[in-house]
């Protein structure tokens, strides 16, 4: 019958709407379900996973020595030209001339954090850091030199 169908239709519609309201009402009253992370406040407790790809860094040990041989594998592996290796000639202990890196220039503004340079590095000289707050006021600050001034290559790394 028409009237019966009409009323059933309305009842079904109201029921479906009440169901939705029950759900939102549940969340309105259950504050422990809140998932907001208050980002700048929780900076201390924010633990990024060790694999997080934030930026490329070159670890140095306490003697200011790094593991980079200047093989340019990272430079070749990079799809964007993010890494540039600049060489200098250096005299080693026996007085022979030896090529060594002067600067390892890293353009953070071009980097897409694809991890290919780290994969390509044969001597594990570079790795990904967990930093992620990269914003600066001057774009030039994003061009970084990864090796510390006066750093040397570690002994035994070929």
């Amino acid at each position, binding site marked *: 019958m028409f009237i019966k169908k009409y009323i059933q239709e309305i009842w079904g519609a109201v029921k*479906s709407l009440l169901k*939705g309201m029950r759900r939102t009402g549940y969340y309105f009253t259950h504050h422990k379900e809140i998932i907001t992370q208050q980002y700048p406040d929780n900076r201390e407790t924010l633990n990024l996973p060790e694999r997080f790809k934030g930026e490329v860094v070159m670890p140095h040990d306490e003697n200011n020595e790094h593991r980079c041989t200047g093989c340019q594998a990272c430079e070749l592996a990079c799809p964007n030209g993010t890494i540039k290796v600049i060489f200098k000639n250096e005299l080693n202990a026996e007085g022979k001339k030896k090529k060594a890196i002067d600067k390892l220039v890293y353009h953070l503004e071009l980097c897409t954090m694809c991890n290919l340079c780290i994969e390509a590095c044969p001597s594990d000289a570079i790795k990904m850091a967990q930093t992620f707050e990269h914003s600066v006021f001057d774009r030039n600050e994003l061009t970084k030199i990864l090796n510390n001034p006066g750093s040397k290559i570690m002994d035994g790394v070929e």
Partner: protein
Amino acid sequence: MEGFGEVLKMYRKTEIINDSKAPPAEGFGEADMIINVGPQHPATHGVLHLVITLNGETIKNVEPHLGYIHRSIEKMCESLSYRQFIYVTSRMDYLSAHINNHACALCVEQGLQVEIPPRAQVIRVLMDELTRIASHELWLGAMAMDLGAFTPFFHAFRERESINDIMEETCGARLTMNYMVPGGVMHDLHPSFQQRVKDFMQLYKSKVHEYDEMLTGNIIFQNRMKNVGVLSAEDAISYGCTGPTARGSGVSCDVRKLYPYEIYNTLEFDEVLETGGDSFSRYMVRVREMQQSIRIIEQLIDNIPEGDFQTKTKAVLKLPKGEFYSRVETARGELGVYIVSEGATTPYRIKFRSPGFSNLSVLNHIAKGSKLGDLVAMMGTLDLVIPDIDR
């Protein structure tokens, strides 16, 4: 950076010329008006530009104008090596970045004739399915928001966030992971991966009924979706639709079933098909597909074989001369990667057959004659990701 000024100049030049030259659509009447939806519009989720001819509230013609985020990825890939070009494809359909990378890796492996270890295969499939769920979650929230229901967006993001955390832990990034490499995957799984995926599945299962309460069963939502944007099976095929868009019209086109890759032929899952062809069917396909993905993950999560996660490949990859085509099922449909190799270290020509491009082309066909409000529902259920369309 001296080129930057010129880019700006060029941009300005092209901006002013614009589309005003475009002739009015056929049958443009007195009472009709042309209205631009996008590129800065809340419903286009990106920079899609639709020029809509309206008669009152009724749509007479929809014409997409693309290219606002065209980066010519195909041309870019021609100068990148076979290892490098994979990362760019994450930027195409950024919501299913894993699956894009997977397609490229598959194509390169096909050319190199490399067998990848079973562990890597399982990892890839797991990641693909997680990505698919994450993508559908985002779609669900965004589509609900288009229809004016704001709350499900946040509920959907809660689940998506836990997937992103899993991704972050294993792959090191949340959106553009670049985890697939030719020969396998880049890292091994994180030790806590299994536990976290199980936690996620528990979360998902405890919350999945919310979508029914908030959306699927809701009378307003049903009215908005049912009989809106009806796409027949023939049209879906003719317009080259794939993925949930076509499956909502009853076209069986799941690449995982038809042309199984990796270990999909050993897995038990259903190809989700709905026959309505309207927006509601497309919605249901995606909602049910999430459950199928959960089913796949359930089968695999306790059975990840031990072994290598990567086959060692040469440092410099060279594909033999020839043509290679691989296809995978992304969250939006069939992604084809067509590589033409001249035997060099870089591909000679790459074509990405992106699902969004074909799915978008059907919009004018299904939108004609419906209301302006329906357009939002249609665009929502076509699940357009603009970088995927523009490439």
